[in-house]
């Protein structure tokens, strides 16, 4: 059964911002895809999604790392649920660390390889966060020029725009002290909301560009298979080519996410359905701002169990 009514984009969200409330989702916990993937993930990483903890966790493991693994797992669970329900994607779009699940769903890498990459890069970011403490902040209600002015005003804290999520919605990344100052400045300049995100690294900022060789090392034994479903590269706004995937992965944590540009391209190409392959409704809400008429929903929120 194909329940799609037109060209459909599956959208893989970036890192969750909070522990997933799985105790409130008893039906999902009984889902066969959920059970199967959790078991495989637990065997490989010793991370138990239901407990939101690693096996024999002596001291509290990094919250961001747990969120990153949880995000990957839940995206893969919802991808298989969508497929089982008859949804067929024409293209994948991905936001930030959603790329790992998008690659696994496109069968470029296996589920286990995607999990390995997620955890390995997550641990690299954790280490980076202890050496160079960074932060990220969500700024809502200011136009691009104002956000750029804030970055310029705080020159010296290596602030940059990490996500272009909407015409009035940006994420800033940089040194922790600079991000804190940016929050105050944004509120004083009449932002509707300015809040810290659950990161202790300056993700998607040039300061992480230096990690690309270590990421290439993580990827060196992984063979990238042909893409079963194209993935839109949000830098070039063209489908990601198989031969550029490793470079993309090694650079993407040091470069911004151009989400608006990505969605606008898909709208121009005639995509009418946008399905968030994740547990929350983050990208679905961003879609509402970019194009109110587009049909968008999240598998985690909307797909019957």
């Amino acid at each position, binding site marked *: 059964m194909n329940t799609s009514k037109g060209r459909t984009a599956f959208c893989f969200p970036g890192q969750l911002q909070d522990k997933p409330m799985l105790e409130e989702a008893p039906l999902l916990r009984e889902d066969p895809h959920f059970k199967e993937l959790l078991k495989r993930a637990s065997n490989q990483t010793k991370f138990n999604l239901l407990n939101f903890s690693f096996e024999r966790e002596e001291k509290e493991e990094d919250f961001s790392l747990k969120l990153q693994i949880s995000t990957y797992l839940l995206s893969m669970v919802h991808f298989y649920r969508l497929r089982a329900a008859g949804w067929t994607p024409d293209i994948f779009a991905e936001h930030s660390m959603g790329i790992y699940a998008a690659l696994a769903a496109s069968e470029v890498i296996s589920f286990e390889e995607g999990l390995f990459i997620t955890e390995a890069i997550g641990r690299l970011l954790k280490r980076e966060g202890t050496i160079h403490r960074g932060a990220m902040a969500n700024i809502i209600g200011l136009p691009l020029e104002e956000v750029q002015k804030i970055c310029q005003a705080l020159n010296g804290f290596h602030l940059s725009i990490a996500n272009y999520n909407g015409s009035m919605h940006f994420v800033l990344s940089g040194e922790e002290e600079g991000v804190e100052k940016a929050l105050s400045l944004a509120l004083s300049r009449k932002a509707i909301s300015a809040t810290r995100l659950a990161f202790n690294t300056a993700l998607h900022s040039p300061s992480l560009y230096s990690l690309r060789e270590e990421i290439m090392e993580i990827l060196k034994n992984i063979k990238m298979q042909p893409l079963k479903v194209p993935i839109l590269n949000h830098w070039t706004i063209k489908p990601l080519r198989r031969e550029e995937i490793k470079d993309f992965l090694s650079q993407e944590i040091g470069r911004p996410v151009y989400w608006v540009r990505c969605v606008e391209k898909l709208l121009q190409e005639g995509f009418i359905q946008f399905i968030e392959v994740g547990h929350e409704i983050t990208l679905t*809400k961003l879609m509402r701002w970019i194009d109110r008429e587009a049909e968008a929903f999240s598998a985690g929120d909307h797909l019957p169990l």
Partner: protein
Amino acid sequence: MVGLNDHLIEKIKQLIIQRLKLMDMTPEMIETDAPLFGEGLGLDSIDALELVLGLEKEFGVIIPDAEVGKKVFQSVRTMAQYVLEHEGTA
């Protein structure tokens, strides 16, 4: 100017449903005094931006900053009260 009556309350609830595309909800399902954010209707800051724009378009009311927004978006009733006091001032 509309009074703080059932009609205005209903209009605010419809605005929330339309702006946030809560198509599975009806105005009756939104409690007038329940918190809109967090534990209540579960809205977040992205939703707040939609509501700011909605209030401006529908009632000509401006939310000037986050501090005012926090007070206005406590509940449907506080939104209605703000509209009543500021309607047409945009």
